[in-house]
């Protein structure tokens, strides 16, 4: 079987298209690269969904934590504390079994026990809490002068938030948020190891990598392939986030602009 045939058979295997059975013998390099890449589609799906939807909740949570009212502040603080204080792996397990129990009470919760929705919800809440904390930190360090200038110009309410507070917050938070995005993509590999079933062996990249490592008893091929894919994804994230960063900073003189730089120590999550 040529490599092109393998790609045609397995490129979308993780989504349920193409060959139904996984390879059982030989395990050529081409098969491993194709299937692990096919699994990568799940990682990208989870990462993108969680990142885009989590962004909005993160903004809300950050504003909540910075709010004067107790009723807004306390729930936001607790949400951030609970999610950031416990392991994502345990959150996945807890959510999966909780959804499983809820499924008994109403068929409405049926789709939540599959990875595509259930795990996406967990990742959405997870990244919202982590980014919420980042955005909150940025909100706290908005220069006083900017806000006073906005007041002097007569900006109030929504306009002040939309034109002054929010863009400044994003600008300050962006380097840390880029790190959060990278670690979110890394975290997506936990999904199929934490209860959520990979129906008909449609799993993510790590699922296939560990499948090959188990079958061939040789970890030195599939895991480096996986690492290669993830480094590629990381580079893409840095490129996209860097472009957004440049746009956020485009009004600043070039010597003041903050370049996207991975700061040691300030990056770990989960």
């Amino acid at each position, binding site marked *: 079987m040529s490599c092109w045939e393998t790609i045609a058979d397995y490129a979308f295997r993780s989504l349920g298209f193409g060959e139904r059975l996984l390879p059982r013998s030989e395990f050529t390099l081409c098969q491993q690269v194709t299937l692990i890449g096919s699994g990568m589609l799940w990682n990208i799906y989870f990462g993108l969904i969680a990142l885009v939807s989590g962004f909005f909740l993160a903004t809300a949570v950050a504003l909540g934590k910075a709010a004067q009212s107790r009723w807004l502040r306390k729930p936001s603080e607790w949400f951030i504390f609970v999610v950031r204080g416990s392991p994502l792996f345990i959150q996945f397990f807890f959510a999966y079994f909780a959804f499983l129990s809820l499924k008994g009470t109403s068929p409405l919760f049926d789709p939540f026990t599959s990875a595509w929705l259930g795990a996406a919800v967990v990742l959405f809440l997870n990244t919202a809490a982590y980014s919420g904390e980042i955005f909150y930190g940025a909100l706290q360090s908005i220069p006083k002068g900017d806000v006073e200038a906005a007041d002097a110009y007569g900006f109030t309410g929504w306009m002040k938030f939309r034109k002054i507070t929010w863009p400044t917050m994003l600008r300050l938070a962006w380097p840390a948020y880029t790190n959060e995005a990278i670690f979110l993509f*890394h975290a997506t590999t936990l999904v199929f*190891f934490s209860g959520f079933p990979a129906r008909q062996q449609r799993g993510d990249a790590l699922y296939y990598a560990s499948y090959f490592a188990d079958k061939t*008893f040789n970890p030195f091929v599939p895991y480096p392939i996986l690492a290669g894919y993830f480094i590629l994804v990381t580079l893409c994230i840095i490129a996209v986030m860097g472009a957004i960063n440049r746009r956020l900073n485009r009004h600043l003189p070039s010597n003041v602009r903050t370049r996207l730089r991975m700061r040691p120590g300030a990056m770990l999550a989960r």
Partner: protein
Amino acid sequence: MYSFCTDPATLDMLPWLACYLTTGKHLAFYGAFGTVLLLLAITAPLALAFGFVAAAVARGPAPLSWLGRGYIAVVRGVPDIAFFLFFVIALDQMLEWVRHKVKCPDWDAPIRQGSDFVVCDAAKVPLSTSPQWIHETYGFSLAVLTFAIVFGAFAANVLFGAMRAVPRGQIETAEAYGMSSRQTFWRILVPQMWVYALPGLSNLWMVLVKATPLLFLLGVEDIVYWARDLGGTKTPQFTDYPHGDWRMWYFLALLVFYLAFTRVSEIVLARLMTRLTRGQATTGGERQRKVRAA
């Protein structure tokens, strides 16, 4: 455990629960929390040592420093769980391969035969004749080593940054006093870098705590294993304590355990930071001085 536990089916709710929570399996479950703490107690200093060596190597002369930087960069760029799964098999095979070369030099069959990894019997780790506890300890040690390698890279990253954060003037002063580079490193750089490293190391400690459930993936019978096992639906045929699917509640308990653990760590680390900041030429140290002076 208690004397009234002989016939659980007749018991009321509270005594039933008291009996249920003290069954042999539950005691093993509580013991697994000890496993987690043991892992942390061994891994944290080991990872710090790995990190220290890697950071020191990374700021050294060229060919060696690439090795240090490469180690840091690769481990950071790839999901840690992939590393866990990789190292557990890789370390095991490496160990067996080395022992094979030493113990059976006249073995001529290839080691990798298709999908099998074949070494001579004398080179197996642990020996197939060894008792069960050796197998378990070996599995645990592999897990510890894996954690130390992965978190060592993170620690190296933090310490590397901290070494660079020590003010240049301090090093220059040391050199002006005629200290050799070795003396400067041990007497000036290392004592001063900790205050810069602590925020990063605190963060790392939290991440390490939150990574402990991954022990489950490494084949150790840890709290996640027991929570899944004990929480599952039990029918009267197999147990004196039948119940429905309680896994959700078991994992809720684990969630609370980790929340409490990270909260306590946070408080302790904040105290440690206050202690280390005392007398340092940083904004934090300056603030403390002003408070005391006032």
